[in-house]
């Protein structure tokens, strides 16, 4: 049984954390990075007590946990559809009770960050004698884990019958699609939950930052909010690059210049960031700043995308992303973001022209 756990760990658990590293980074920063180190304990105590004492706040926390569980379930479902992972269905040959144990183990491993924080909530809840809240939290989480594990058992046993698909609403486009919609269509039809969660996290970051009280109009708050939103798009960018190598190889044979291709890509990311720009606009960010922020956002995603032409490797990409994020963060703090905008576009174009044709996915695999 240990070997089964090990294989599932490699195929599903490690890949889950790898793919969502950007999201975890944002959440980690929001939980531990935005308050001074001396206030971290009291900050978390306040959050936990709010969870324990306010019904509305507790319901909000439950909603977040539910979304996280749905994300886990969607991820497993997507992975089980991959031809490479079809061998996982051999687990259905296990005794039902063993299969259930394996499933619950897997679900718990995917929920480790939630579980770790829940332990603190329960400990404080018992300490402060909020037994009813503690009970409801334990009950809710147990129900989530049992339901997810039961679903997984059913999914593995009924391979031929079942196909889970979270159908989020997406636009239907009657006319022939222009190239940017080749990319965006991949997100809305093939990876709707990845897209949905990236957008929710991104808009949440922007909204959160715009709530920070400032004495006067400060554009950096908006840019920092967007920067965190962009970090949550890291998985989206990686998936789009992967899609290019799998389904858009024919593009390489078409008579299009590098500039033409690069502008198509810019248009794609420009369309992707429209919700963020709308959110900034309705929160009274000045029009001239909006233009700059838009160029900053598109440039950031373009550079993230084009540097993946050097190597399409998730681990290296995330390391690069972390460094890139920190540099951008500092440049924004030091008010040199407008220079960065120019740098992002120029460097993005440079990487693109230098690596677009020399890149070979088959070499990456070899």
């Amino acid at each position, binding site marked *: 049984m240990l070997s089964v756990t090990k294989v599932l760990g490699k195929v599903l658990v490690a890949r889950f954390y790898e793919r969502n590293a950007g999201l975890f980074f944002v959440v980690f920063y929001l939980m531990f990075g935005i308050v001074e180190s001396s206030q971290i304990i009291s900050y978390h105590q306040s959050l936990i007590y709010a969870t324990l004492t306010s019904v509305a706040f507790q319901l909000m926390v439950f909603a977040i946990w539910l979304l996280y569980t749905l994300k886990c379930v969607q991820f497993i479902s997507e992975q089980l559809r991959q031809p490479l992972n079809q061998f996982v269905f051999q687990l259905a040959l296990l005794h039902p009770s063993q299969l259930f144990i394996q499933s619950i183990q897997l679900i718990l491993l995917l929920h480790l960050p939630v579980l770790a924080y829940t332990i603190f909530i329960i400990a404080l809840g018992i300490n402060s004698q909020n037994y009813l809240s503690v009970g409801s939290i334990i009950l809710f989480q147990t129900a989530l884990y049992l339901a997810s594990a039961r679903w997984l058992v059913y999914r593995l046993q009924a391979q031929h019958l079942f196909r889970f698909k979270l159908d989020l609403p997406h636009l239907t486009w009657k006319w*022939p*699609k*222009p*190239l940017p919609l*080749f990319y965006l*269509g*991949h997100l809305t*039809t*093939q990876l709707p939950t990845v897209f949905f969660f990236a957008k929710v996290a991104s808009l949440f970051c922007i909204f959160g930052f715009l709530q920070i009280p400032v004495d006067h109009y400060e554009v950096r708050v908006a840019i920092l909010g967007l920067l965190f939103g962009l970090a949550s798009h890291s998985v989206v960018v990686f998936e789009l690059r992967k*899609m290019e190598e*799998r*389904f*858009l*190889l*024919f593009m*390489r*044979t*078409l*008579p*299009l*210049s590098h500039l033409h291709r690069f502008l198509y890509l810019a248009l794609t990311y420009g369309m992707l960031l429209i919700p963020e720009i709308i959110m900034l606009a309705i929160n009274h960010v000045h029009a001239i700043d909006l233009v700059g922020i838009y160029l900053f956002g598109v440039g950031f995603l373009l550079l993230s995308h084009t540097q993946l032409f050097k190597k399409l490797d998730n681990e290296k990409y995330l390391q690069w992303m972390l460094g890139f994020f920190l540099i951008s963060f500092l440049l924004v703090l030091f008010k040199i973001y407008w220079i960065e905008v120019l740098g992002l576009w120029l460097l993005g174009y440079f990487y693109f022209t230098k690596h677009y*044709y*020399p890149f*070979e996915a*088959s*070499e990456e695999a*070899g």
Partner: protein
Amino acid sequence: MLTLHRVKKEYNSNLIIQVDQLQFDTGLYWIKGNNGSGKSTLLKVIAGMIPFEGDIVVNGIDLRKQPVEYRRQIHYVEAEPLYPPFLTGIDLISFFTQVRKAKKEEVHFLVQKFNISSFIAQPVGTYSSGMVKKLSLVLAFIGQPAYILLDEPLVTIDKDTVPILYEVISLYAARGIHFLFTSHQAFDIPSLTHRELLVENHSICYL
């Protein structure tokens, strides 16, 4: 005329194919060779799809110096093409027509000829491999290239489509378009003669 000069392709330092000098003039060329001999890699190199060492020139247009114009001259279709599953055949045909500045009548003719009009409004993800192949063949013929490269064009298409493909190749050959193709199956167009080449031991020679 298509010329390869000192072309060399390696994957992870393993030599796949090396061509000192090779010339294709007019007509049809059947490139033969065992599995893994490097036929598909050679076609991808000529299509400008993958990096390589050396020079390739078509009608005086150098791939390295005029990449866009070169790609207008060379069309290529893979043995097992893949397209985004949510796109429809119409999406892809429209896109290729626009990028290659093709005439709509020509596209309409190809769609009718290959008999794909009944399914091209559906997403590619719903197609069988034979339907995808037919779509890819239509895409290969859209435009005004000098050469069309077909990697295993007979694989997965039904027997009714084979004479249609032969007919379209004959028609386009009469317009002055030349063909390089690989095939493990007999490829015999009665109205046209072809020359044969063999890829073996990392090199290629005329038979």
